[in-house]
């Protein structure tokens, strides 16, 4: 790809892993599957200063659309149904948002005002999304450059679309109201697509350091703005994973350059990201946000909250890395592996809870799990811990860890014990190992290394290498090397 001076901007949304929703006491877990009931609504044209034509156009658009909202037990109440005014802002979520603002060196206004952002696609039962700015004009250090973080905001997630047919759009309301933190960068210039992807990654790392970010698919959603000289600002919505950002930017730059080469105009527009990095036209770039104050919620004074937020502010990533190097003697390779994994923050929890070598834990988290992911296998964090716990208690061997993790990824309902049984990985009794060693020796050699190798390949993860070596030493008299 030819070198161009590319301008980009990132908007990244993070679902918060807090107990309750942003404006009510519903659970934010989103675990219910079967709707209790469905409520049918229409949306009205929203009055605006733009006059008749605009209202008429909205009316025509909305006239044939009916929205069906699914209601779930414990996860939807009158607030999501727009049948009850919002409750005060969830303080747990607000604290996380303030911490994110502080971590990006933002200034935090003394008074936060909740706003209503007009949305008429039905994804908000009210016809607007509630949102508030909690920080502005911050930055992120990347390769010695201050990347501007223009805004950090806290908002309610929209309802998730289930399906759309014949003018009926079905939404699930359990996602509506789940707290989201949005981080917006200013214009990023002078960096390659790959570097912009790294910036997005670093932003994610900083936000995740609060340890209050959901991990499920779709919990982190990123939009990218791209323009090339002579082109136009194009907003790409919903890039599905971080690893797709550079590819998506490259392809958009290429698309804009091709249009320019053919002397065609690049239209400022919103495009939708596809899983292969390409994009498709969604709609023209929307005008300015239509916002007005959420008068049901009084402004929030931040002074006291900020004190609590700063007191519990997580350690910076740089400090953490420094400590990992010193305290756990991790190699740069392992550290970079951990950083790229989902387990950077879990690593230390595990090390503190387990009497295992930090390097071993890091290796499992950074490398074994990465290999599994490449094969499309994901293991949940709690299960990984159980496997490591079994290793600590010498119920399994180091050699069988990968196999057990893969099994648990494929069979998430099974326990570590089930895996050991089903994979036939029960540890062999000493007599059995001894019998195998003797068998190997009888087959003709007493070379220590050879015997170890041959025995290990026959016990296949059912004995610890240390235990095997001890027996061999006893039988043939030590390491001959």
């Amino acid at each position, binding site marked *: 790809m030819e070198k161009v001076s590319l301008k980009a901007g990132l908007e990244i949304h993070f679902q918060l892993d807090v107990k309750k929703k942003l404006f009510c006491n519903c659970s934010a877990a989103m675990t219910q599957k079967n709707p209790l009931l469905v*409520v*049918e*609504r*229409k*949306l*009205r*044209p*929203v*009055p*605006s*200063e733009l006059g*008749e034509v605009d*209202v*008429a156009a909205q*009316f025509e658009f*909305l006239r044939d659309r009916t929205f069906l909202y699914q209601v779930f037990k414990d996860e939807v109440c*009158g607030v999501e*149904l*727009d*049948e*009850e*005014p919002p409750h005060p802002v969830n303080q747990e979520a607000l604290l996380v948002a303030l911490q994110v603002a502080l971590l990006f060196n933002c*200034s935090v*206004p*003394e*008074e*936060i*005002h909740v*706003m*209503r*952002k*007009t*949305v*008429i696609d039905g994804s908000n*039962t*009210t*016809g*607007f999304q509630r*949102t*508030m*700015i909690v920080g*502005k*004009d911050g930055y992120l250090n990347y390769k010695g450059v201050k990347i501007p973080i223009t*805004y950090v*905001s806290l908002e309610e997630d929209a309802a998730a679309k289930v399906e759309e047919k014949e003018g009926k759009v079905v939404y699930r309301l359990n996602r509506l109201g789940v707290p989201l933190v949005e981080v917006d960068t200013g214009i990023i210039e002078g960096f390659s697509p790959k570097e912009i992807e790294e910036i997005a990654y670093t932003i994610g790392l900083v936000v995740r350091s609060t340890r209050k970010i959901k991990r499920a698919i779709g919990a982190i959603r990123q939009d990218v703005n791209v323009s090339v000289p002579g082109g136009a600002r194009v907003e790409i919505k919903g890039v599905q994973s971080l690893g797709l950002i550079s590819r998506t930017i490259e392809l958009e730059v290429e698309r804009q350059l091709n249009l320019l080469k053919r002397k065609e105009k690049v239209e400022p527009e919103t495009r939708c990201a596809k899983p292969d990095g390409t994009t498709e036209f969604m709609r023209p770039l929307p005008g*300015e*946000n*239509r*916002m*007005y*104050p959420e*008068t049901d919620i*009084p*402004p929030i*004074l931040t002074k006291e909250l900020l004190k609590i937020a700063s007191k519990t502010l997580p350690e910076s990533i740089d400090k953490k890395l420094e400590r990992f190097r010193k305290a756990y003697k991790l190699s740069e390779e392992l550290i970079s592996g951990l950083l790229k994994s989902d387990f950077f923050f879990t690593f230390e929890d595990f090390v503190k809870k387990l009497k295992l070598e930090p390097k071993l834990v890091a290796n499992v988290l950074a490398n074994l799990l990465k290999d599994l992911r490449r094969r499309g296998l994901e293991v949940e964090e709690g299960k990984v811990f159980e496997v490591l716990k079994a290793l600590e208690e010498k119920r399994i061997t180091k050699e069988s860890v990968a196999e057990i993790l893969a099994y648990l990824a494929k069979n998430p309902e099974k326990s570590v014990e089930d895996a050991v049984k089903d994979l036939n990985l029960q540890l062999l009794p000493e007599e059995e190992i001894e019998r195998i060693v003797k068998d190997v020796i009888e087959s003709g050699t007493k070379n220590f290394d050879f015997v170890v190798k041959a025995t290990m390949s026959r016990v296949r993860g059912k004995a610890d290498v240390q235990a095997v070596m001890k027996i061999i030493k006893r039988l043939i008299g030590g390491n001959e090397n």
Partner: protein
Amino acid sequence: MYSKEIERILEKKKIRVGDKIRVLKGKEVYEGILMPRIEMGDTSCLVVKLSNGYNVGVKFEKNVKIEKIGRGLKVFKEKKKEAKKVIFDKNLPTISILGTGGTIASRIDYRTGGVYASFSPEDIALQIPELKEIANIKAEEIMSVMSEDMTPERWRLIARKVAKDANAGYRGIIVTHGTDTMHYTAAALSFMLKDLACPVALVGSQRSSDRGSSDAAMNVACAANFVANSDVAEVCIVMHGSMSDDYCLAIRGTKARKMHTSRRDAFKPINDEPIAKIYRDRKIEILNENYRKRSGKKVKVDDKLETKVALIKVYPGLDPEIFDFYLGKGYKGLVLEATGLGHAPTLGRFSLLPKIEKAVEAGVPVVVTSQCLYGRTHPTVYHNLRELLKRGVIFGEDMLPEVAYIKLMYVLGKTRNLEKIRELMLTNMCGEISERTI
């Protein structure tokens, strides 16, 4: 309003709300439009609308500098409130919409964040485009009060305006009204509009009309359908029938009650079936045939009310002296919102019997209704009730407490004779008493 200190500085710098300003606070810069200060929060915080539309509050302290960097925005003005007509189609009937407060149409100025109420028929027609397929409209704002500030005097004014338009030949009348006391107004109009010959619908909204999800437009569209196309010559409340935007219900004005603080379908018929199910198009489904039909009669306003009537809720521990207060103040009638079938305490110092006796002896009627709302009072099932009956109280059948309260005002406007009062209170005048209940 901002704090005095801020107001003083703004005045000195000739900065007005709506101007573009820059606020400098150490290294922090806030640039945007100065917004009006809402009453909640810290009045020493300047509210600035940033370029992305968000508002933030910046505390005004010694180190803060404000400068004006742009001129103010033009602010919308509310339109004059006068009766005006919009004719869509000569072949459609024309209905009258009377406003008593609250908004059924509004505009938002996204630059300043202000919401501007409007009652011009043009704005109503613009925001409820369905209307042009239902009826031509005349709209007039006759007062602007919140529903909790409604008074008997205001009911009278509404009744006179409704009667005027009904007699002027409008096909039906819509009265827009705040929801909290809408059922009181509905009951009052029911009694006061004698020989009503066309439908009258009271309509409100539980979600304000500045949001896309407002129920105002559908309620008004259904009410327009109801008053233009039905032959129900009664005062009804027309509001959402469920949480969905599927249909509205027309509920008899003397049998309706607000039963939820915030839901769209807050109004329920009590001891009655809804009269009709109404859809946004021209469909109307009659559910209850028991109603007065349209006629060619002229409506007369019978609006003499005795307002010195009180509604007293009975509860354990109620101090009987409350009766002394009302009697001492010259009250002419009392309605008890009693417990169960119509009970009130009869034991020891909490007994209401002596006070009730005293009231009746003084010629003050006491009407008993039930706080259960659903069901009918009954004077002879229990001993205590018989005691009340003996002392001359009037058991109000299945009348809602609020309706009995209004009816007693109306009846006392006609007579002070206790026997006559009893007879009128127990005569069904406009659907407030049903013969059968389940």
